[in-house]
């Protein structure tokens, strides 16, 4: 066997091992989480630091899988922590918003400097979504937790469907820009490092995109989740922004949308440092590792695992809200 082929086979074997080890680790954690509802000690029998540590470790692993799967940490955090930890959903949603906000703030500057987030594209969307996220947060804090659990479960199951079926277009075919996006100069040029070329882009269907962002902001505030799962399809598939610009701009939009909703939770006393801070730090550390593992892990495998996890968490939220699996 030629040595080049042998080296390539060894490399492929190493990659396979990395996948298997990673997936085993992740599945073990999540399987443990699945049984946790029955097996975990009651809130009174486990000290506060045990829960804080469990939260940190869970968020660390969620952060690792969030990056390669292409979903924000917030969308994983709320159903999983809300389903398997003893904290009230008010505090979980408050912490979820901060997890999503801190991740978006950490990534925002480099996305803006690299041209992958675009201020002119983001600002009109962010203004509407911020305003509606306030309404979502206020309504979320005013209605009973069981109803929120049911709505959360249904929304997560909807996200699972969206993630399973939605296609992505790296460079959507956009004809002429619509009048509104042309008037607001919602266009740009970025350097695509993978292709080593400059990509010029513009968008269309802006009025419908703006309308959808009102709904996205509302859901972000209501459930305390980041809304990247919805932002990216609207920017990419509906408005025609390139996939990388959509993902970067989506992340930047969250810095404004989640901060508006976070203020409402903070003012209503629905933010507990002991829940929010270990979550934020764990998720950010995990995301750092996740970003480094991007070239080792097969994104499609991790994505399938995350979809399965979300399906489970969504069913758990729904059944918990209905009182079937308290």
């Amino acid at each position, binding site marked *: 066997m030629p040595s080049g082929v042998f080296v390539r086979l060894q490399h492929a074997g190493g990659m396979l091992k990395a996948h298997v080890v990673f997936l085993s680790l992740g599945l073990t954690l999540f399987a443990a989480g699945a049984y946790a509802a029955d097996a975990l000690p009651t809130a009174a029998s486990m000290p506060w630091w045990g829960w804080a540590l469990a939260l940190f470790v869970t968020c660390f692993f969620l952060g690792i899988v969030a990056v390669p799967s292409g979903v924000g940490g917030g969308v994983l955090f709320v159903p999983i922590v809300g389903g398997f930890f003893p904290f009230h959903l008010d505090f979980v949603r408050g912490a979820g918003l901060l997890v999503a906000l801190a991740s978006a703030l950490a990534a925002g500057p480099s996305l803006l400097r690299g041209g992958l987030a675009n201020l002119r594209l983001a*600002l009109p969307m*962010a203004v509407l979504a911020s305003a509606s996220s306030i309404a979502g947060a206020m309504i979320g804090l005013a209605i009973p937790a069981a109803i929120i659990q049911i709505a959360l479960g249904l929304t997560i199951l909807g996200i699972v469907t969206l993630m399973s079926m939605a296609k992505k277009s790296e460079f959507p075919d956009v004809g002429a820009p619509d009048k509104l996006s042309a008037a607001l100069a919602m266009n740009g040029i970025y350097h695509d490092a993978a292709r080593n070329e400059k990509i010029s882009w513009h968008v269309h269907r802006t009025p419908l995109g703006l309308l959808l962002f009102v709904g996205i902001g509302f859901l972000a505030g209501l459930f305390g989740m980041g809304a990247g799962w919805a932002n990216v399809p609207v920017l990419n598939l509906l408005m025609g922004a390139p996939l990388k610009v959509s993902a970067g701009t989506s992340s930047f939009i969250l810095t404004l949308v989640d901060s508006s909703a976070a203020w409402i939770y903070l003012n209503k006393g629905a933010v507990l440092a002991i829940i929010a801070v270990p979550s934020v730090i764990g998720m950010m550390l995990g995301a750092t590792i996740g970003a480094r593992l991007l070239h080792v892990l097969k994104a499609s495998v991790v994505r399938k695992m995350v979809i399965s996890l979300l399906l489970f968490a969504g069913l758990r939220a729904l059944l918990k809200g209905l009182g079937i699996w308290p």
Partner: protein
Amino acid sequence: MNDEHISVEQQRYANWLSRGARSGLLILIVSFLSYVFGLIPAHIPLEQLPAVWNLPAGEYLKLTGSPTGWGWLRMLGFGDFASLLGIAWLSGCSLLCLAVVMPVYAGRKDWVFVGLCVVALLVQILAASGILTVGH
């Protein structure tokens, strides 16, 4: 990195966002560590938290005598509220970013984006003000 295609206002926004996010995270971590390691006293003792963190926010506030709105600023001497300073900083750092890009848009007579920044600022300030109050 492709600086020539990045607008001045976007660069400026990025710089201020970077400063805000880094300082906010630093405040968050330092205040939280001081809280959990007992360097600052806690309003609600840490060991009592598992008995109350399963309550809705409204009941939790009533039972623990914790303030709403900006009342936590008066209680910064307690670790659980000192930790909120970093959270508020992170939530508010976009305000500065929006404020610093407005003169760039104004200098270019891009009044639509000046208006968008003003509306974005007002929305953030309204959310932060504590005027909007609802609850269980």
